[in-house]
């Protein structure tokens, strides 16, 4: 910034330098000068309607709003002059006359901007003796509770919905005193970011439904943490009372999540208190599960693993912490096995992915790119905050294109190339050809107008990005897709980025939670190991091919599972269940998609006998007489893990062979087994409020009208999906957004666990 774009102003006698054109309220905030406000929010457009921030400016006869007044050189501002105070107090009185003042029963009590400001600016005599306005509450969904009596009409929620959630779900109807905030026609708020309404609302008009009447703000203690569900690693505050997580709030971090979090990150904590929490070690005795003490259980595990030795296969959750993954791989390697992997939703291990894939740029840099091609991904639902950054890019003028087998409901303009799973490589090859790349597949590709258009946008952009996500990495031809994506990026001058499926996908690679020459997640199940160690995974939900996984575990001689839950599929698979601490119950570290290491402390004690997994693994190491298991704290583990990661660099260069065999040939119907937003991991799957939202879909055969007609199916029918001889029967839903030649049968949902891989040929039979 040049000197002359700076101005000097005076606020309450204090000289301040500010950027010309900056809003007075921001300049005052930076200088720590407090100006009261309700409608202003620095992430939203300025509406200047609450009139709480009225201040005096020299030579201006009337008080003016600091939130809508830009600074000018030499401006003299008084925020506490008689004129300013009279205006602020006047506004406060108006805001309170129709406010119910029901603070004792209001969840916002104690952290209410209106309550706080009224202490400073309110009067203790009420001059309004009339009846107060009554506004009925409305049902707007399972997450957000309304109490519109308390609304002060600041319209933050309206602006949030339109500008951030991008859905215009909230609005105001009526005039004057009868103006009402709401959804117009009674309906639910379905945005994946809707929980932010709770924070955005300065009063108790929009509050958290799951948290309702649970606690008072001043009873809570707050810990900083990191959300465990996606590659963003949103920063959060965990609020605790009596060793129980009461709620989760965002912690602002401009480089990561700004001041927002997804609903998944906010409400998943409820899953901690699911009835099937595992609270003590259990062993299977003569086919029956019995509780036992840690010593017995661990001894049994040590014996079991010693026996399995090099035949052990370790399957680790990509949502496990750096410390857990580091110790787990170390433990298994000490047994002489290199069968270690966290890529449980991947099926193509032919080496198409880079050595250490990552986002390729900072999360906060996404909004500045000029063009994006998103391949096999739906960031809006898979990584909602990343989706928000992409939306910001689009609103900033970036052209965003998608290549997917599903058409997504996006909240900005984007070009979506719909392509059956088997054709995705052809479409991508056509784009590659259009940007000028050459090579196998590419040379034979048929370039159509839509490919040309995507190519032009990438080539013309000052900064372009090619992103691969969850569906791409689960694709049977992932190697080919990523190799093609790399060609597109190279020829167009774009950056390439890999989003990473879970909270710690990047961290897992950094601490080598994957084989060097041993078996990978796929081959460990294809050629069953003698024994398995499972960390934070559920056999029927968390694997690319759940049938294959469940079969492999059943055949194994010994399976130990470190888990926070006891589920039927775990009980069927394992011989020993070790209760591990869940989210918020352990300290740890995640490395997010852009490579940022973020550590956090535990916020509550683990439930029952559960213990942090890093401790369990360390004791196991000791029992096995392995070297290097003498850490005293998770800090120590982290330090070693970091040292071990030192030699590894984030690296997106792809060296795969384009000429590899295509595994999806596109004859018949191909299953698209995406993982819906609220089915991603064990914690989310057990969070009741999230499971009541519109996004919490159940298993169904989703198929476009043309394919449905071919299969003789109609909306509402029941049909059986047959995949490699495995069957599952579920209802049929017609969805024009599913590519021809394919059928969407989501993974990780109840009812789909009897099927095969996330992608693969299926047939349908009317039930």
């Amino acid at each position, binding site marked *: 910034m040049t000197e002359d774009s700076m101005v000097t102003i005076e606020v309450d006698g204090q000289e301040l330098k500010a950027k010309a054109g900056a809003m007075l309220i921001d300049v005052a905030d930076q200088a720590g000068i407090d100006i009261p406000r309700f409608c202003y929010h620095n992430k939203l457009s300025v509406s200047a309607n609450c009139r709480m921030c009225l201040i005096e400016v020299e030579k201006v006869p009337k008080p003016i709003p600091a939130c809508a007044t830009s600074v000018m050189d030499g401006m003299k501002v008084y925020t506490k002059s008689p004129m300013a105070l009279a205006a602020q107090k006047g506004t406060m009185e108006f805001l309170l006359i129709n406010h119910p003042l029901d603070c004792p029963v209001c969840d916002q009590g104690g952290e209410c901007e209106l309550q706080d400001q009224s202490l400073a600016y309110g009067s203790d005599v009420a001059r309004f003796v009339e009846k107060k306005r009554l506004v009925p509450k409305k049902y707007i969904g399972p997450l957000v509770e309304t109490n519109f009596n308390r609304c002060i009409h600041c319209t933050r929620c309206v602006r949030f919905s339109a500008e951030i959630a991008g859905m215009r779900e909230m609005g105001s109807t009526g005039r004057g005193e009868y*103006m009402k905030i709401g959804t117009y026609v009674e309906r639910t708020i379905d945005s994946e970011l809707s929980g932010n309404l709770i924070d955005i609302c300065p009063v108790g008009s929009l509050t958290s439904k799951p948290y309702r009447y649970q606690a008072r703000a001043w009873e809570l203690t707050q810990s900083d943490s990191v959300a465990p569900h996606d590659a963003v690693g949103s920063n959060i505050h965990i609020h605790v009372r009596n060793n129980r997580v009461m709620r989760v709030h965002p912690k602002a971090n401009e480089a990561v999540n700004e001041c927002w979090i997804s609903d998944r990150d906010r409400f998943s904590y409820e899953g901690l208190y699911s009835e099937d929490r595992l609270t003590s070690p259990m062993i299977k005795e003569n086919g029956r599960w019995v509780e036992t003490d840690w010593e017995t259980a661990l001894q049994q595990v040590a014996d079991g693993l010693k026996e399995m030795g090099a035949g052990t296969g370790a399957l680790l959750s990509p949502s496990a912490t750096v410390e857990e993954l580091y110790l787990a791989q170390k433990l298994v390697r000490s047994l002489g096995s290199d069968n270690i992997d966290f890529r449980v939703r991947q099926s193509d291990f032919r080496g198409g992915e880079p050595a250490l894939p990552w986002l390729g740029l900072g999360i906060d840099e996404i909004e500045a790119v000029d063009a994006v091609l998103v391949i096999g991904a739906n960031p809006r639902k898979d990584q909602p905050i990343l989706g928000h950054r992409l939306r910001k890019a689009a609103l900033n003028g970036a052209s965003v294109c998608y290549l997917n087998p599903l058409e997504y409901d996006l909240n900005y303009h984007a070009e979506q190339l719909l392509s059956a799973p088997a054709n995705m490589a052809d479409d991508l090859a056509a784009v590659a050809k259009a940007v000028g790349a050459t090579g196998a597949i590419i040379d034979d590709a048929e370039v159509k107008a839509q490919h040309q258009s995507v190519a032009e946008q990438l080539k013309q952009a000052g900064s372009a990005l090619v992103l691969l996500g969850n569906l791409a990495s689960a694709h049977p031809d992932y190697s080919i897709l990523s190799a093609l994506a790399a060609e597109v990026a190279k020829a167009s001058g774009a950056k390439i980025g890999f989003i990473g499926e879970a909270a710690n996908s990047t961290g897992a690679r950094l601490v080598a939670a994957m084989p060097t020459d041993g078996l990978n997640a796929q081959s460990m199940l294809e050629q069953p190991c003698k024994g398995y160690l499972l960390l934070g995974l559920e056999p029927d939900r968390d694997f690319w091919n759940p049938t294959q996984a469940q079969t492999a575990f059943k055949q194994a001689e010994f399976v130990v599972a470190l888990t926070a839950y006891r589920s039927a599929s775990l009980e069927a698979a394992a011989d020993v269940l070790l209760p591990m601490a869940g989210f918020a119950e352990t300290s740890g570290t995640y490395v997010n998609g852009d490579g940022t290491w973020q550590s956090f402390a535990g916020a509550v004690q683990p439930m029952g006998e559960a213990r942090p997994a890093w401790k369990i693994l360390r004791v196991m190491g000791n029992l096995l007489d392995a070297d290097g298991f003498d850490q005293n704290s998770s800090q120590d583990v982290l330090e070693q893990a970091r040292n071990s990661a030192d030699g590894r660099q984030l690296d997106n260069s792809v060296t795969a062979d384009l000429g590899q065999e295509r595994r999806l040939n596109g004859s018949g119907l191909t299953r698209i087994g995406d993982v819906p937003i609220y089915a991603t991991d064990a914690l989310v799957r057990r969070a009741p409020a999230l499971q009541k939202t519109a996004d919490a879909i159940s298993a169904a055969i989703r198929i476009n009208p043309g394919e449905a007609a071919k299969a003789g199916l109609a909306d509402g029918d029941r049909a059986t999906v047959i995949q490699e001889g495995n069957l599952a029967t579920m209802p049929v839903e017609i969805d024009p957004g599913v590519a021809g030649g394919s059928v969407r049968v989501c993974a990780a949902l109840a009812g789909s666990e009897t099927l095969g891989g996330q992608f693969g040929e299926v047939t349908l039979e009317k039930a």
Partner: protein
Amino acid sequence: MANEVCFRNMDLDQPWLLEQYKSRGGYEVLTKILTEKMTQDEVIELVKESGLRGRGGAGFPAGLKWSFINRNSEASRYVVCNSDEGEPGTFKDRDILRYNPHQLIEGMIICGFAIDAAAGYNYIRGEFWEPYLRFEAALEEARAAGLLGEDILGSGFNYDVHVHLGAGAYVCGEESALLESIEGKKGQPRFKPPFPAHYGLYGGPTVINNTETLSSVPVLLKNGGDWFKGLGVENSAGTKLFAVSGAVKNPGVFEVPMGIPFSELLELAGGMKDGKKLKAVIPGGCSAPVIPADEIMELNMDYDSIAKAGSMLGSGAVVVIDDSVCMVKLLERMSYFYHEESCGQCTPCREGTGWLYRIVSRIERGEGRQEDLDLLTSVGKNIAGRTVCALGDAAVMPVNGMLKHFRDEFQYHIDNKKCLADS
């Protein structure tokens, strides 16, 4: 009467027809401007020189407003005519739409030329169905005659005028709410700055003028600024349409020179009805503070004289009040209006107008308390000057006017729980 400007062809049989309008020299100025290649700056300069001030209420100099427009803006420019005519007591623009629509159209084209506008919009009060039809018919005639549309009169200037019908909200007469409404949004005023001249309709620089303002333009350009100035008095050029209503024999719209004594205007309206006694006058629409009889009878009807008396010429709606009227009841009705019409976005107006109404209403019903009079003033103070638009001020001004001049009637209500006017 001085039917020189907006009513210049009132005597014709069907003055709203193109051919009749032309018989009085209609569209001659436009033709001259477009064919003799007057520059845009010349036109704006002439409007400035004439001293024409906005007739919508605030009296802002029209030429100056036009001169704010950046003709090189990237965004398209627009002309917007405000025919919302929502101010209670005002019904003058209706007569322009009914009887002289072509003069308004000509004024809108000239303005469009002067600022190089992409299009013009006339926002017509929703209840004006018949005037709306008249105006639409006139637009059709003008289009057929090549006065609107592509390449107007062979000049290369493309411009058309469209009508947007309001839906009954007073606040949509406020210029920025009106723009929101045309854009299809909820009619709520915008925070200013930026003013419409910089960021108006669809974000483009926009001139927004009242119907009477724009309709005056062709005539003042035809006859010259000095002529126009000469019609009125210092600071108040031209003639003015006054919509006289209330306790007069012949209520109606009168075009008279600015600065005419009120007493003459009253005479034009046939004097007091049924021999009633004049009690007070609201000189410029409901939002203008009331002026008692003895004062108004000494006043001239121009911007400065009325301002000196603590009120405003406003929209030129003259409401004549006789001595049978209870001022408390009258204020209650007016306060109800603002309470009902507040858009609701800004706190002082949303909450304050309802409060004002309830206090006045309480006094009216005989339930007033002594402290209510000061409370009214204090609540008013907390509204005025602190709102997003001037509706807040408009709600307070009548209250202050009434309390200033007729406080005794309010006091009587509080003391005796009934009307002074009744007793």
